[in-house]
């Protein structure tokens, strides 16, 4: 959805929304360097937690003269003024299209803010052309780099505890992708039942003071493609680290994935092929989510699946990524020409579906925001509704 004319679909959530979403629960101060609309995009349409659990996300009120004259000092001064009332543990400053045009140096601004305030500060050159998964990935990588630094708070404690038990860090838990605190609790409960209680959920229901645990992780469990880059960073430092990939949607999938994780596997075991008459399903979803929906169908037997991904290709291969579709015309053609008997996709894509296909509404916040209730239901709840529907039609 990133190129040329789009007639009916909104663009996918942009990069700055992914970056903001990544740090949202870490007691942050987040500044989007824009005039108003980009912040309104994020708070109005890209942050499901905004209404009931607002975090300090502010607009820098960028004006034309600021851009022409390069008045970065106004942005820095605004952040300093804020600290009279906000006590953040981390600061994020991210960009929008205008700063991209004038070449704003976000890393430099972040360094200056950090030196003035003493608060860890991340500057990201988001520009509104990338997608949310890119922004989330870059922000998580910046956060993890910082957590791995020897001067990160509590890192001495980390070294002291290094020999104790097993630690699992959860990467890529993303509110925009339908993972919420209930979902995170459910994952933690599953791990606890399997004997692992030392869990760092990093971007969801977590505190900055817990992030030192990343450095002593034995396992990293990655829940979306946007978490893969950060996991690779940790692996580079700790070659013995085991990285597991998968987004469980049901108790059964969770159990299988936890068993596979503890046994050192990299993803959930695939079920044995069921020789049967195969029907085809087309799934339009984030690559991990699509994989898990496909697994649900394979479990039921008799289904072949194809995947369409709208999220930006981040260059990782572990999830068996298919190339993403980035124009509305191409997406319309791909769906309308499909011979699939079942299409699982956001309700906004129903208009493209051929008449012969059954369509299951799987609202995705990154596309339709709150229009179809994706802000009210986690992926687990939608998966339950999906399985109920499959019970009725199979």
């Amino acid at each position, binding site marked *: 959805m990133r190129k040329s004319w789009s007639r009916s679909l909104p663009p996918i959530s942009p990069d700055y929304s992914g970056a903001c979403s990544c740090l949202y629960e870490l007691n942050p101060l987040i500044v989007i360097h824009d005039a108003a609309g980009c912040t309104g995009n994020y708070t109005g349409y890209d942050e499901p937690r905004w209404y009931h659990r607002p975090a300090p996300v502010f*607009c820098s009120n960028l004006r034309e003269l600021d851009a022409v004259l390069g008045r970065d000092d106004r942005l820095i001064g605004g952040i300093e003024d804020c600290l009279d*009332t906000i006590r953040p543990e981390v600061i994020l400053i991210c960009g929008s299209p205008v700063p991209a045009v004038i070449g704003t140096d976000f890393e430099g601004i972040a360094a200056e803010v950090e030196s003035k305030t003493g608060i860890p500060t991340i500057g990201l050159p988001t520009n509104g052309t990338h997608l949310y998964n890119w922004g989330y990935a870059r922000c998580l990588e910046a956060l993890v780099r910082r957590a791995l630094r020897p001067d990160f708070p509590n890192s001495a404690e980390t070294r002291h505890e290094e020999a104790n038990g097993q630690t699992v860090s959860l990467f890529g838990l993303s509110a925009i992708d339908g993972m919420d605190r209930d979902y995170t609790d459910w994952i933690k409960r599953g791990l606890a039942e399997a004997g692992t209680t030392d869990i760092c959920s990093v971007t969801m229901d977590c505190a900055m003071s817990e992030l030192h645990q990343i450095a002593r992780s034995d396992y990293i469990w990655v829940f979306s493609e946007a978490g893969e880059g950060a996991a690779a960073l940790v692996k580079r430092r700790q070659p013995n680290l085991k990285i597991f990939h998968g987004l469980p949607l049901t108790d059964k999938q969770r159990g299988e994935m936890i068993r596979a994780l503890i046994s050192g596997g990299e993803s959930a075991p695939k079920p044995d092929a069921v020789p049967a008459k195969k029907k085809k399903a087309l799934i339009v979803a984030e690559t991990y989510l699509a994989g898990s929906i496909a697994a649900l169908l394979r479990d039921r037997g008799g289904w072949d699946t194809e995947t369409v991904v709208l999220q930006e290709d981040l260059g990782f291969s572990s999830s068996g990524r298919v190339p993403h579709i980035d124009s509305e015309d191409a997406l319309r053609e791909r769906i309308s020409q499909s011979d699939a008997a079942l299409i699982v996709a956001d309700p906004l894509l129903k208009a493209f579906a051929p008449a012969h296909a059954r369509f299951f509404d799987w609202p995705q916040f990154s596309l339709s925001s709150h229009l179809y209730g994706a802000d009210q239901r986690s992926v687990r709840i939608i998966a339950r509704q999906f399985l109920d529907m499959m019970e009725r039609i199979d």
Partner: protein
Amino acid sequence: MSHELDVTVMPACLTYMTPARGGWSVVRRALLLPESYLFFIGMPACMRHIILSSLELGVQDRLSFIALNDANLATGGYEDTVVEEIANAIPRLGTKPRVVRMFFTCMDDLLGTDHASIIDRLHEQFPELIFTVSHMNPIRADSPVPPPIAILCDLFGLLEKPADMAEPGSEKRVNFIANNIAVPREDLICRWLADHGYAVQHIAEFKTFDEFQRMARASLNIVVQPLGLRAAGEMEKRLGIPFRYCPYSYAETEIEANFKKIAEALAIDPPDFGEIRARIASEAKETAVKLAGFPVVIDYAATYRPFSMALFLQRSGIAIREIYASEWLTSEDTAREALLAADPTIKIIDPSAPARIGDRKAVPNVVAIGFEAAYLTGARFVLPYCADEFAYGYDAQLRLLRDLRDAVDAPIDLERAVKESGYTV
């Protein structure tokens, strides 16, 4: 008239936007023009709230977007992209428009785009269509022509001077300018003008572009919001239509002065206010009784005149608790001083200040006028007003009193109401 736009601004650094922030977007205002189609042009990110809000409003068939990318910006090839994409798109639109409006976003201000060339190239291919350029550029919010003012100039700039137009004063038509929703026809001002033979015209009421051109034939433009002053000035120069600034108001002296200005301009007698004044006095007493124990909070998205509105309610015996405003017209200063002199406990709070992030309250029994005041006080009783556009003059006083009484009988789900309102940042 520029002093009418003067504002007092609260000290600000970074801006907090509550989940209830919003109003009529540039998009929604632009769509008031009948038989027009809008192409938004810029980075894809800028288009997300536009398209999603158009889906919420059910107007998605009247607009779409052309996403630019780093490559065609870096090479300057985006002007060709815009022409090619629009030329390809026009034959595929469901309903053929009369006017194609191109909206460029903030970064266009820094690019030096040759808009005239884009219009010429498109006009060569589609000579039957009118092509125009507008901007959705909040980066110019502090300029003399910020987007809400520019959009009105662009809209009314499409009126053509009729070749056979008689003297402006001979036309028995009056335009209302700058409001997004027409003043209710049952309001005194419309009945009074109709009684004197004047047809009242508002852009939202025309179904075709040709019908919209009737606004070029008018004896007077009544400007009801300060945002419309520039457009009205341009119409006066270009079309010869005089204007009077007669803003929405809640102050008796100003309401009657507004009617007097219109009466003088049209050389008619002002209306008799006796009956409506008596009804307001009676309903004010009834409302004060019903709202005993229900303090009122007001925000500046609901009204450009928060202090005048509050002063009217206070003088009607209704308790005012807080006014939420980041800025206000300096013409409101007198009402503000009178309000605070009568009750120094009333607080004026900046809803955009970063401190508001942790400042959401749960005030018992509070009645909010405006969504943002409702969010920040936890109000369940809410008047979902936006920019005063519910009634005019004494009818606004009357409607406000009635709506307050109704509101305390009907608590709302604020989150749902905000999301369904279609108001955006």
